[in-house]
């Protein structure tokens, strides 16, 4: 037995060659945090330029590169890899598996990411600058009219798509094959469920994105006209293909966040999740609906009215399963014994702000009203409420919640709560006024604006600087915890926490569940 019980290798090779799910999870998390800082830095440049009317710091062309890279890096570099990292750490520990099903591929799917983002960031220094057509890179602005760096951008999209597909195949294989005996599907923690469904979404849509960028590549270099009407193609085709990927993509981002919140709220309410089954079905319904609503991003492209109506009705329907989720979380809290440690604060922040983002989403689904909202700052406000307050807040909650289990040390609670309140205030100061300027007619993606939008934009910029600064506190708190946090040794770090991950020692040893755990049949899902 002795030989099988080895710890990590020493030095750099531990990280380069590791096949350990915890090591890979850790690398994903640190990498995504680095990208979060980089994407955040670009956002700071955007907000600094928009602090006042008039061009102050950067030129319009560079501004467009900043909005584009901010979006791409936050979506593909920060949010998605962070949840993959969390999946790596937690899924084996939650289902009682010793590791991921495909550990070597796991190593590979992480290690192709850093060079890819290095390549993407390096486009900033290329002739003509980085891609500047927005994170949605609509053709022909992103093809015929793009800087030469678009080729490098296409390559990086291909590679990170590859990484995502490998990561999700791994998750599907792990969940389907590696569950401990007795861990039936309907006993899996919700985080595992949401990730399983997310992984299917990823496998389904990443190839579509790869197809879209391949067609771009052909248009740019091989004289095809997929997206050019002059050659018999159609610029709107690009949008259909992109959003067929893009809409499921937003659920790829938010479903694991739902999973996290569904773990943490019961823990700090000291009460089981109200409707486990309905949460699973709601997640699956949202995933299904995400495939048939893509053109609600394109109400103004001139679709026939029948198409508009179909996409409007289908989109409105998403409110039903999303409502089921919100009602479930609140009923879980109802008559619990609530306490408000940092993870719970971030989850409550998520609950309030994500619900607001859901409301504006419902408003945006109404096609005739969308003729006024579309491509305005109202949309920017909406998707930051669901992306930042949704995905990022829940990710932050997850870090605070599981960090003590990972490193056997407790973070500083006061600093955590401070981080929450500064984030919460900064976030709302940034994005709430953007609803106003959007409704008043300010288009998105403009480097300069009319004078009537000045005050709210200044407010937004101040909020953004506050929110940005609060992340430094977060980084400090995490590092301080790992280095010198107060040691914890209870297996169950939180008294209300349920699930297999809380049955292994704290800090979690390098290898867990080498022998499958016994699942108490009476003790369904956490």
């Amino acid at each position, binding site marked *: 037995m002795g030989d099988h019980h080895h710890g990590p290798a020493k030095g750099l090779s531990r990280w380069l060659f590791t096949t350990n799910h915890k090591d890979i999870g850790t690398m994903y998390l640190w990498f995504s945090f680095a990208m979060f800082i980089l994407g955040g830095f670009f956002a700071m440049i955007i907000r600094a330029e928009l602090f*006042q*009317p*008039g061009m*102050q710091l950067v030129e*319009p062309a560079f501004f*467009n590169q900043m909005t584009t890279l901010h979006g791409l890096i936050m979506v593909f570099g920060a949010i998605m890899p962070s949840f993959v990292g969390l999946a790596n750490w937690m899924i084996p520990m939650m289902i009682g598996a010793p590791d991921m099903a495909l550990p070597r591929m796991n190593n590979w799917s992480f290690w192709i990411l850093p060079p890819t983002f290095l390549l993407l960031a390096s486009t900033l220094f290329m002739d003509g600058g980085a891609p*500047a057509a927005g994170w949605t890179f*609509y053709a*022909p*602005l992103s093809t015929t009219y793009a800087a030469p760096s678009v080729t490098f951008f296409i390559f990086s999209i291909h590679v990170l798509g590859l990484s995502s597909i490998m990561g999700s195949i791994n998750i599907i294989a792990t969940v389907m094959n590696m569950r401990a005996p007795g861990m039936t599907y309907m006993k899996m923690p919700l985080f595992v469920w949401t990730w399983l469904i997310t992984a299917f979404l990823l496998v389904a849509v990443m190839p579509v994105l790869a197809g879209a960028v391949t067609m771009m590549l052909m248009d740019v270099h091989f004289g095809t006209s997929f997206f050019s009407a*002059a050659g018999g193609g159609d*610029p709107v085709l690009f949008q259909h293909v992109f959003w067929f990927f893009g809409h499921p993509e937003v659920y790829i981002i938010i479903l694991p966040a739902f999973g996290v919140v569904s773990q943490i709220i019961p823990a700090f*309410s*000291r*009460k089981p999740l*109200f409707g486990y089954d*309905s949460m699973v079905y709601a997640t699956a319904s949202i995933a299904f609906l995400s495939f048939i609503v893509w053109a609600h991003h394109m109400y*103004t*492209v*001139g679709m026939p*009215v029948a198409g508009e109506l179909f996409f*409007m009705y289908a989109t*409105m329907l998403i409110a*039903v399963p999303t*409502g*089921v989720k919100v009602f479930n979380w*609140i009923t*879980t*809290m*109802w*008559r*619990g*014994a*609530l306490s408000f440690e940092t993870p719970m604060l971030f989850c*409550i922040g998520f609950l309030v702000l994500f*619900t607001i983002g859901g*409301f504006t989403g*419902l*408003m945006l689904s109404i*096609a*005739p*009203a969308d*003729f006024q909202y*579309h*491509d305005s700052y109202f949309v920017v406000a909406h998707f930051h409420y669901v992306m930042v307050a949704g995905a990022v807040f829940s990710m932050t909650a997850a870090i605070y919640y599981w960090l003590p289990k990972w490193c056997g040390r407790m973070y500083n609670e006061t600093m955590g709560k401070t981080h929450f309140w500064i984030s919460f205030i900064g976030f709302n100061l940034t994005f709430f*006024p953007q609803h*106003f300027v959007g*409704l*008043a*007619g300010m*288009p998105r*993606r403009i480097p*300069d*604006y*009319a*004078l*009537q939008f000045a*005050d*709210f934009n200044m*407010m937004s910029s101040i909020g953004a600087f506050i929110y940005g600064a609060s992340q430094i506190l977060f980084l400090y708190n995490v590092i301080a915890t790992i280095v010198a946090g107060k040691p914890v040794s209870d297996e169950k770090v939180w008294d209300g926490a349920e699930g297999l991950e809380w049955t292994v020692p704290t800090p979690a040893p390098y290898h867990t569940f080498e022998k499958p755990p016994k699942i108490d049949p009476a003790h369904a899902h956490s």
Partner: protein
Amino acid sequence: MCFEAKRLLKLALGPVLMLMSAIALASGGEVNQVNMSPGATHVGERIYDLHMVILGICTVIGIGVFGVMFYSIIYHRKSKGHKPSHFHESTKVEIAWTVVPFLILIGMAVPATSTLLEIYDFEDAEMDILITGYQWKWKYEYIDENGENVSFFSNLRTPQSEIYNSQPKGEHYLLEVDEPVVIPVDTKVRFLVTANDVIHSWWVPELAVKKDAIPGFINEAWTRAAEEGVYRGQCAELCGKDHGFMPIVVNVVSKDEYNDWLATKQAEAAEIKELMAQTFTMDELMARGKAVYDRACLACHGANGEGGVGKAIAGSPIATGELGGHLNVGINGVPGTAMQAFGGQLNDVEMAAVITYQRNAFGNNMGDAVQPIDIYNFKKG
């Protein structure tokens, strides 16, 4: 220093002032407007009503949901000694919170559908305007009219000096154009929207029109303004570097005023047709050329031809070189650079004048005068 001090003061007082001004609700392009404007059209009012109804429903649901949550947060605290109950799952409750939202959605879908159908009713338009998006300006063509075809470009009028803060910003900063589009009041105007290069989107909030301008395709939209006035909007789809600098201004005027305006524009168009056949003196060309230069070239090439975003024209090998090469750059642009093809944007008189001006101003004393017929011949090949 004064500027810095003002900025700091504004920064400190900003949020307070903002709250105060936000309370004074305003409509229609006002400072610190916080809500959608019903605008000047019936469709706009219907959209506004729909927006308010759905916002209202969301607010009520929000108050309910957050109310329950905060009640729980306040009264069901562990620190208050509240003991957790362990209830979970209730088929009745779960069916209710699935069915009730569904019914609310049906209630929303009914007015949404009828509004959408109204927006899509393009029948009985009384006039058509073809709108073409260019990087980064709009072109308007009044078609289906008897008589002379009227068409013109509408460019941002805000000077670079205001954008780069060397001059105070005017009231309509970034929302002003050299030539607004003019439409009559109480008339169903159909817009045919397309683009010449990349996708743009023609958006005037108060006319309740937003339609993507897509190269190679023609989209339809329409408006019927109930009130005269000046309505301002912007390009809504990212279209490259100067996406933020291609505003839209629509003057809605009385039908009589519109007819007068159209007659004047048609006369101008007829005049330009005549001018095309004329030969101009050097002085005439230089005077016309300077006007065109200031409007179309100055932003990139500088007031004295010293260059900027674009190359210098003073002493440039193109402007002081062989005429054919110069015409080629002016008319066909330089692909892959910010230098656009102006052949379709300037008429032959303007093109002749501005080329002459570039070859003879800023110390480029080439001494050659280009006539409209030269442009015509060059374009014909």
